[in-house]
């Protein structure tokens, strides 16, 4: 029981720590410091997710919220303003901060004392039990996803259509950002001495980037077996080009001839892969004159076709989940690369293209 209490103590520390970090992030006038506090909050949340038994979330949340997102906000601060123009009294600030902490502890005590608090229940809802029972169960083959990873099964099999539409939202957000920067093309000559960080940083980045790519691919391709999947692998993969961008500078991408158009092509082929996998069984069924569903993974009642879930030597393949994960990782990674490439174009240059005509009016 002591170990269980310790476990919850760690959770509570993460919660209280995140309150402090969020408070500091919100009231801070210097945006650089605010981003730092926000990253501390993200780290504490990631630890909290780990303690709440959500390893899948940890694997996406760490690259997204601790890596990509502060980097993007730092780009934003560099291109706009660093300080917020607001006056607040020191006394009021400290009182608010302390009051929020006291509020948390007091209300928690009240809730626990009454015995009606959000005690983690010993059981989950009936629906969750159903999902868990059918995630990987050869005995109920006709309703199972046949992959041991519960979260990925739900993402791509039980609620597959949902995920496809959410991928469309992601795609539209990125297309909209690209549209805002339309017509901006910037190329430069990479100079090893002038651009990027020092030689030491560059050499180590050269070694670390292939390792990050390897780990990202591992997360994506084992999504149906262990915590991981397309989103997680893609956001882990996106850290590698970001690292190259920060350490080597934007002009290095021009040197190796990796352009926005190429990234867009990779992204589109990833999305095409997602689409093809969604329709694959249906297309096969049309030729074989058999009934089938869109997004079908395993054989269902009245639809006898399906992806193989077991390879040679009893290797689990997870049916369509494997293909979905690989394509989604490609699409997510390339999508973020496009945005980083756009964000890294020098502001002075963009200004001359985007608002060049309109500025004369003022």
């Amino acid at each position: 029981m002591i170990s269980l209490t310790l476990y919850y103590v760690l959770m509570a520390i993460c919660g209280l720590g995140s309150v402090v970090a969020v408070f500091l992030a919100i009231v801070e006038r210097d945006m650089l410091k605010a981003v730092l506090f926000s990253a501390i909050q993200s780290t504490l949340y990631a630890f909290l997710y780990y303690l709440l038994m959500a390893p899948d979330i940890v694997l996406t949340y760490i690259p997204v919220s601790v890596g990509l997102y502060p980097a993007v906000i730092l780009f934003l601060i560099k291109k706009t303003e660093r300080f917020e123009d607001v006056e607040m009294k020191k006394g009021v600030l400290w009182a608010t901060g302390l009051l929020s902490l006291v509020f948390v502890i007091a209300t928690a005590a009240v809730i626990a004392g009454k015995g009606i608090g959000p005690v983690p229940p010993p059981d989950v809802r009936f629906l969750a039990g159903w999902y868990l029972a059918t995630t990987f169960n050869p005995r109920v083959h006709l309703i199972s996803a046949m992959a041991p990873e519960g979260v990925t099964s739900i993402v791509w099999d039980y609620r597959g259509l949902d995920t496809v539409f959410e991928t469309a939202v992601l795609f539209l957000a990125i297309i909209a950002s690209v549209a805002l920067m339309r017509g901006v093309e910037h190329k430069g000559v990479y100079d090893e001495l002038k651009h990027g960080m020092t030689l030491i940083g560059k050499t180590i980045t050269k070694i670390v980037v292939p390792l990050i790519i390897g780990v990202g691919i591992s997360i994506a391709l084992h999504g149906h077996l262990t915590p991981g999947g397309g989103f997680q692998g893609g956001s882990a993969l996106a850290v590698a080009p970001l690292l190259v961008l920060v350490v080597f500078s934007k002009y290095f991408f021009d040197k190796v001839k990796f352009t926005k158009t190429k990234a867009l092509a990779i992204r589109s082929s990833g999305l095409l892969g997602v689409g093809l996998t969604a329709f694959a069984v249906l297309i096969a069924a049309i030729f074989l004159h058999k009934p089938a569903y869109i997004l079908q993974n395993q054989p269902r009642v009245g639809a006898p076709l399906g992806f193989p879930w077991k390879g040679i030597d009893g290797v689990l393949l997870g049916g369509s989940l494997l293909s979905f994960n690989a394509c989604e990782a490609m699409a997510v990674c390339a999508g973020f690369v496009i945005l980083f490439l756009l964000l890294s174009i020098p502001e002075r240059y963009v200004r001359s293209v985007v608002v060049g005509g309109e500025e004369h009016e003022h």
Partner: protein
Amino acid sequence: MASRVLRAIPLAILVFIVYIIYTGSATIYDIVTGIIAAALSSLLMANITIEKPGKALNPVRWGWGIAYAIYYFFVAEVKAHLDVTKRILSPSMPIRPGIVRVPYRVESDYAITAVANSITNTPGTVVVDIDPQKRLFYVHWIDVASLEPEECRKQISEDFERFASRVFDG
């Protein structure tokens, strides 16, 4: 293209090892996907990461690398750790910090990085900046014993350079 494949080989081995260890199992599926992942990432990065593939597969260089590691971990690190620990724990805190010039004579990027990382990793010395044209490290030293660049080199980095040039240079 052939040279690219040749360059990718040492990198692919490294990525494959990390892939298998990260995955935590070694079934056929892991090995097959591991080979794919290693080939993809190493072919993508080969021309950037590796210049001469022969160097990475040369056993003599590996031997010198192991000697470097043994010297580094059991002599240099131990000495530096004990020295700085003494400085931290002694009540008077005897420090004379300053940034000194330390010239280097090694050639390749990897050798320079290895020497610089060895200097930074030993407590008491941190490489603040590097000037590739003048071939100088600017090192923040916790106990400046000399202002002469050559004397500093002798005290800080000479041993590292001797090993690093045999492992990475030539």
